[in-house]
């Protein structure tokens, strides 16, 4: 078992979570909790794959996935921003809606044959760096590189730009933003859309790049929910979100790859095609999410960090306070 190869694949797998987590992070920073990530990812994966099959162009598939994810997120946006409904229930509803709709529209897609995928390539020079080069810059999908770009950009955007400042204000204290003429509702619609688009992108990253194909609900296998958990772990910070995503990606790969070799560190590999232990290995990402949540929540209590103060509450002009 080659650790470098596992990490390399882990970065690729983690990219899926990265897009979804960053998207949800931006949405939550604006004060809207969208639990429908899983549903939006399924929509993205399905629409990307079916578009790529229909047109033969994976880039078009990517675009459609982004639009589809963003579009379906607006269902949640209207329900929670305009109609001020409970964001938890609405997010659940979006999960069902996304899953159901993608199952219906993706019917038969799993047998649709081969499709051209998004390109993978190495970055010259950078791939020569020892250890880091093979892990991060060798034969990775274009989406992985996009992920590298996204993290610092989003971090800078949130903390050092004017729209980023507006985003923070709207999520922390919408009344203050509103009093200065910042359109709270419009910004929230926008960031729910961005969250949906990135979830769609995450879905497309699965079906067109990392583990190509359409396997109904197994395509995402709960990664949307893990992303929601990672946002809490990340304390709404994109750099921590990236760290968590790649860690989880590596874990997922490790679970698959650890069952392959007969020996491990010179000893007999207890996981070697062991179906019994395999089931427990597969529990790990989910158990790990819970553990990560415990860590994140305890840290939040200790450091008195918190979610964006207005997260989950509708903004009604004239109603006071947070």
């Amino acid at each position: 078992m080659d650790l470098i190869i596992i990490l390399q694949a882990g970065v690729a797998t983690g990219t899926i979570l990265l897009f979804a987590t960053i998207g949800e992070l931006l949405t939550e920073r604006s004060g809207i909790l969208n639990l429908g990530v899983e549903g939006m990812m399924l929509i993205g994966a399905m629409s990307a794959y079916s578009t790529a099959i229909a047109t033969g162009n994976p880039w078009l598939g990517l675009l459609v996935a982004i639009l589809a994810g963003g579009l379906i997120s607006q269902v949640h946006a209207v329900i929670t921003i305009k109609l001020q409904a409970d964001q938890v229930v609405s997010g659940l509803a979006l999960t069902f809606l996304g899953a159901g709709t993608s199952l219906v529209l993706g019917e038969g897609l799993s047998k649709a044959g081969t499709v051209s995928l998004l390109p993978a390539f190495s970055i010259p020079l950078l791939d020569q760096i020892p250890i880091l080069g093979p892990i991060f810059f060798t034969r990775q999908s274009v989406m992985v590189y996009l992920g590298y770009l996204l993290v610092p950009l989003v971090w800078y955007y949130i903390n050092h730009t004017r729209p980023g400042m507006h985003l923070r204000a709207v999520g922390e204290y919408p009344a203050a933003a509103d009093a200065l003429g910042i359109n709270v509702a419009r910004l929230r619609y926008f960031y729910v859309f961005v969250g949906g688009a990135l979830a769609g992108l995450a879905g497309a990253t699965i079906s067109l790049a990392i583990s190509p194909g359409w396997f109904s609900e197994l395509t995402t296998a709960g990664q949307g929910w893990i992303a929601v958990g990672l946002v809490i772990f990340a304390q709404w910070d994109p750099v921590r979100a990236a760290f968590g995503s790649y860690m989880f990606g590596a874990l997922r790969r490790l679970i698959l790859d650890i069952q392959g070799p007969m020996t491990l560190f010179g000893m007999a590999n207890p996981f070697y095609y062991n179906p019994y232990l395999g089931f427990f290995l597969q529990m790990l990402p989910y158990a790990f999410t819970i553990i990560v949540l415990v860590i994140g929540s305890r840290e939040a209590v200790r450091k008195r960090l918190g979610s964006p103060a207005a997260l989950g509450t509708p903004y009604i002009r004239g109603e006071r306070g947070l």
Partner: protein
Amino acid sequence: MTDDELTPDGKVTLPEGQAPLAGPTNGRGKSRFPFRIYLEPRLQEPPRWYPFAISFGAVAIALFFGGIVIAFAGGNPFASYAHIARASFGSLGVFSDTIVKATPLILVGLACSLAFRMKLWNIGAEGQFFLGAFGASAVVLLPILPENTSPWIFIPVMMLFGILAGALWGFVPGFLKAKYNVNEIISTLMMNYIAVHWNNFFIFAVWSDGGFQMSPVFPRTAWLPRLTDYAEQFPILRGLTAHLGLIMALAAVLVVWFILYRSRWGYEIRLIGDNPKAARYAGLNIQRNTILVMMVSGALAGLAGMSEITGVVHRLQGAISPGYGFTGIIIAWLAKLNPFATVLVSILFGALILAGREIQPSGIPKMIQGIILVCLIASDFLMRYRVGIERVGAEPTGEEA
């Protein structure tokens, strides 16, 4: 707005500064239409029938939207719906099958209702269901009781183990929430995936029946009695699969209703659910109640798993639930967390699941469930706001812009 909408007696007022969601003058004055829709907060409780009318309307609208998507996906919506109706209510036999599907739904619906009352988002009923099935199976397969045990002992013991296993699966997220403030939505959901793999481990590795991915069939003494078992005395019951689980579910309805509306604990649950700060201030122990409610909720879902495994499947296998646990969420919401309404809604969803098995594309029932929940949550604002239509310019407004 007209004057008669001002409170008749001036008794009930909103605090100063409470603005309507989208009052008549929220900047829509530029509309070219001669009428506009406005919303204003309700000042009186709506009548009792109103929430149910809204639920009904939401379902009707959801079916309409579902029909559009079915047509878009190449199906015939009318044929699909007609098929659902026929295949689930068409005869006594299929209605009995519908009831069989409704039985676990009632129980998981109650599980969700109880937790949601306290604003605990237990969306792990699916996993608790799986664990309930596992617990009941363990009685037979471990085995805890010998194969020739009398049903009078077998069934209560299986119930007990199903309930305990489900309660345990509810305890974990409840404890983490109470102790570490871990978001229960995600933890319960993660517990679902763990439950599936846990069961799979036993199905594939421990209790596999000759290498198949299922356990051996339970002995007849561990089956819940079905109506068809009494066909010799009452021939009309021949082929009817409804089983004792229904009685268990209906008993649970009464118990949950009693807890919620007639017990001290139910009052505490409602109080914490509405305002945890006030509850804390009134001396309630929120952490203990969080764990307890999650356990009882898990126990109900576990009982659903036990009922399904001993009443229908009669063996432990992978595919024991077409997403009952998730449907329970929608049922709880559609029934407005009312235990009695849960029964009715469960029958409707039982029909949808039963008939949905034969409908193509196969995702339709799931999608319709999603659309129903979306419409339902969207319609919720009708509970808080009244909608009216007024003529533009009926009042002197700041239209000069």
